[in-house]
């Protein structure tokens, strides 16, 4: 049986304080989410983001209306100072393309990722796998930027869920 070497004395004295440093602290295993859980996740839009549909009549260069998002800039102290110095607008505007708009409108908190995949595959006659791969990457990008959240419904946790 393999035995773990005891920590050196200085390390024991330092206690939990060092564990907070990312280099020295213990590695935490990332929470593992299965494919089945991801497919049943419910993407929902960030309520702080204002958005509207704009078409060619509003000056957009596309034939069909696309989603135009107004994403608020950081409102902490540093953000406010930088905003004042550079006279930056309070919001940045993000224009989604047609497919992005389709996904964005379906991120309503009631449609699962699996339903999104099926819908896109059916509408655009795509293979399920290619939709699954590209959609999950796109949703991850949106989530990383804080545009959407993903609610994972677990058994016995129908209401609320965990994010």
């Amino acid at each position, binding site marked *: 049986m393999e035995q773990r070497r005891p920590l050196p004395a200085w390390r024991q004295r330092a206690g939990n304080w060092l564990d907070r440093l990312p280099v020295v602290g213990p590695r935490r295993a990332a929470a593992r989410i299965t494919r*089945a859980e991801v*497919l049943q996740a419910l993407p929902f839009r960030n309520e702080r983001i204002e958005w509207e549909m704009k078409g060619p009549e509003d000056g957009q260069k596309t*034939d069909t209306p696309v989603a135009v998002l107004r994403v608020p800039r950081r409102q902490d102290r540093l953000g406010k100072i930088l905003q004042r110095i550079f006279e930056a607008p309070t919001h940045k505007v993000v224009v989604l393309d*047609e*497919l992005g708009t389709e996904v964005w409108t379906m991120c309503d908190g009631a449609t699962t990722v*699996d339903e999104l995949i*099926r819908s896109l595959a059916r509408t*655009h*006659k*795509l*293979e*399920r*796998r*290619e939709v*699954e*791969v*590209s959609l999950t990457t796109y949703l991850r990008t949106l989530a990383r930027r804080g545009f959407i959240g993903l609610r994972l419904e677990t058994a016995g946790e129908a209401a609320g869920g965990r994010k």
Partner: protein
Amino acid sequence: MRRTTGTAEKDGTRGEGPLPAALSVLVGWNGLTLHTPDEWSPVAVSGEGRQGYVKVVGPDTRHLEVKWEQPKGVVNVPQALERYLDRLRKTARRSRMELVVRTKPAGLGRLRPDDQAPIAYTWEAAQKAVGCIWHCGHCGRLVIAEVVGERDDDLSIARSILAGIREHGEDDWITWSLYGLTISAPVGFTMEKQVLMTGRQQFQLRKGGARLQADRWGLAELALRGGSVREWYEARERAALSRYAYRVEETVLRGHRAFRLVGRDRWWQALLKLARVPATLTWPCFFMQGYLWHCEASNRIYALIVEQSRRSTLLESVAARVPCHA
């Protein structure tokens, strides 16, 4: 991967009756072809030599795994199955599970032709599976195929999937089919490159100096907005096409308006190919022909480019075997 609704005989699958309507997706790799239910997708394919592996997963927790090899000498199917089950037992022991195996279970009789010496089996541990092992005397392949799922999954579909597997091509034509692109190439063509990107699937096959490239793009209605398929293709593939001097003719292919590309390598490209001859010991093909068409029914764009000798009819034979819509 092609969606099909035809009969087993028409699709080249074994069995007496028509395929169940649920088995609509065709996966083909190096001669092995199989049909899976709608929404199942291949996630792993490997092997162009004597061994190979295909894994197709469903939208739920079920998946299909097929392994094949071409062993030399006499093949003993029961021994091969026992070797495989021993490996499974070892894995189960490591995870402290008990593996319950049943060979020749009821309901799985006459799964494959008798001359293939098939043995059907089921196993159950953390997961469960329904599988079959057989040896084809025609191509010499020993195939193990099984549908795996969680313990509470319904694996009744396994029978039709396993019965529909073909382990070799027909009439010296090998089928390659993944993600909506299905082509058949003569025996001897090997996969040089396979690309899957969002909305694009590509196969590059080679046999000696002859080269065959097939592309399939999805989302055609978005790609072709405001332009023709020829303009779109020439703009997109400008770099690849720059090596040829070619002309374009309009024609009809499988009921679609198509473009036929006919040309040959530019002099510098031909010189490059000739310079490689001492290394490859293969005489290159300098002539190029191709087809480009937009299939409205499947919302896809297809391109087929063949580098071949001047009088070869390879392109026509391959193009006739590319199904773009049901």
